């Protein structure tokens, strides 16, 4: 169980950050579905790490992204947070858009990450195997692209709707709207904002991990990341899609733990 707090930085910017677990610090950058106190992957990682999981700009309040014009300003925004928290080099683990951000932070500020784990990262583009157009799907159909394991999908939805039971339907729609809208600001209409040109700056040992059945970001992109990052290994999790951390949680947590200890 993570606890959330509001961090106020000197420049006036506020961040909502979930924290919990014990051990050496680990920065978690969440994916499209956000982060919450009972995140099962973070429960597993928290057994050996003190988790720091900021809520991405826009997910709580769309006004936050209005002030962030591009991916470089977004990287600066995260750097401000890490400075505010007085964090030195630490493992950075991200999922989906969060994995793209993790790579951007490690490329913009090569000393920030001691190790880097990218779970199903977006950020690269190849015409021969394009990233799926998640944002041209009705919201109700997005899950079909994101999940391979439908039982895991239903369990995830049930857990969240339990937590959201107090919210009105409009507030639930707004919550999804905010998260998707803030993501689109940085990857519209094609999720290639120059990361390929910066990946060579990443100094940390890196693991790129995909669910073998990812229907949103083709797992082939793992090789494109590996080709541009000096010390990079890749792994595939069978029987999982883009939401691999929540479809095969123990397997993903095990691979991350092994990589961080190696």
């Amino acid at each position, binding site marked *: 169980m993570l606890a959330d707090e509001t961090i106020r930085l000197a420049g006036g910017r506020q961040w909502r950050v979930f924290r919990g677990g014990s051990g050496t610090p680990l920065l978690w950058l969440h994916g499209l579905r956000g982060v919450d106190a009972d995140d099962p992957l973070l429960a597993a990682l928290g057994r050996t790490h003190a988790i720091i999981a900021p809520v991405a700009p*826009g997910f709580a309040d*769309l006004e936050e*992204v*209005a002030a962030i*014009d591009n991916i470089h300003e977004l990287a600066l925004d995260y750097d401000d947070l890490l400075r505010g928290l007085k964090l030195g080099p630490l493992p950075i683990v991200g999922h989906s858009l969060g994995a793209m951000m993790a790579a951007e932070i490690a490329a913009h500020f090569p000393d920030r990450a001691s190790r880097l784990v990218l779970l199903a990262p977006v950020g690269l583009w190849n015409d021969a195997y394009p990233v799926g*157009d998640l*944002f*041209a*799907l*009705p*919201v109700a*159909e997005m899950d079909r692209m994101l999940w391979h394991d439908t039982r895991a999908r239903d369990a995830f939805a049930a857990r969240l709707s339990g937590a959201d039971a107090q919210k009105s339907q*409009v507030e639930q*729609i*707004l919550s*999804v*709207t*905010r*998260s*998707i*809208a*803030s993501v*689109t*600001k940085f990857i*519209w*209409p094609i999720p290639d904002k120059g990361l390929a040109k910066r990946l060579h700056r990443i100094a940390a040992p890196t693991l790129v991990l995909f669910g073998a059945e990812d229907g949103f970001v083709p797992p082939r992109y793992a090789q494109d990341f590996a080709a541009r990052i000096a010390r990079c290994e890749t792994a595939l999790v069978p029987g999982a899609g883009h939401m691999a951390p929540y479809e095969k949680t123990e397997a993903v947590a095990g691979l991350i733990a092994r990589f961080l200890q190696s």
Partner: protein
Amino acid sequence: MKFHFFHLMPYPGLPRDFRDKYRSVWVDVPSALFDPAQGHRSYMEYLDELEYAESVGFDGICVNEHHQNAYGLMPSPNLMAAALTRRTSRAKIVLMGNSVALYNPPIRVAEEMAMLDVMSGGRLVAGFPVGTPQDTVYAYGQSPATLREKYREGVNLVMRAWREPDVFSFNGKYTQLRYVNIWPRPIQKPNPPVWVPGGASVETWDWCVENDFLYANLSYFGYLEAKKVLDGFWRTVEKHKVEPNPYRAGFLQFVAVADSDAEAERLYAEHALYFYRNCLHVYGGYVNPAGYTSVATIRAGIESQVARIVGRAGARAELANLGWKDLVERGYVVAGSPDTVVDRLNDLIDTLKIGHLMLLLHFGDMPRETTLYNTSRFAKEIIPRLRHRFSEWDDKWWPREQAVAAAPAPAREPSLAK
């Protein structure tokens, strides 16, 4: 009241099984369905119909902008407006309009509209729609998160480009220009009347009232459903303590005039159903991207025009099964004898309190003779019976007569040759 003939310029040649066979009339509609010969015929006929509308007494003739679709063949309405400046001389050209966020830099819009105003002798109405999600977000790659901010910045730049007499610099978030100094300048001073066509968004109402822009609600679902939207607009007018002048607002309505209600069905039903079944057949993923509709608008419970069509559970099926009776009963199409039409339009005017009524008299794949017939009957039998409405108000959102030198006679053999 003022009456405007609005042409959507739909592609009339979609196959009978279009709805079943293809997923969308917009964005990824197969290009193989477009026959350029049919396109040529349609453009010529549609321009004729707009010109005819002037000749029978419509106040304005309207064109608008859409991309990558068979719903309306006007990626550039400015080209249509330019063609109309040459063959019309009285009707105002209501350009409904340019989606400013799609033009880079947006002064292109200021320049082309200024050209149109000068060419037409001061007859231009300048429309600034945000644009549908299909057009802006999917066909033109704009991020839904920044579209509205970019649009507003662009409109502000266009307004300044028209109004400021001196060269100025523009340091915007989306556009930076060291020298703004457009040529030509509009005839109408300080600028042509500005209309903002929109479905409905709460911020748009405030913005229109604050800037004295006309708010035009373009709906395919008739005036009964639009009441909620216009009520919201008029509440905004009241909130800002400006006069509730009916000419601040406009509304778009399908109308079909015939000898009798039964005759209306015989003449028009097939073409209206072509429009509702095919032209609104938009894939659900293209209508409501997150971020396009503002948080405040979602909270207010107002759906965008297109989201209304395909977003609601069951609405797609409803559209497929729609019959003429449904269209008429719900007021999507005001149809029938002149008495019926006048009654219903009086009810529309009382309900929405709008001074500008835009008419869709061509539907879907309607042939030219039927369109001209409908247009002629509307002009001769409907307009005279409604013209007096709101005559006590001054319309400040309409081009004033301009003192412009008469157009020269057409070129002929030069007399200087001897």
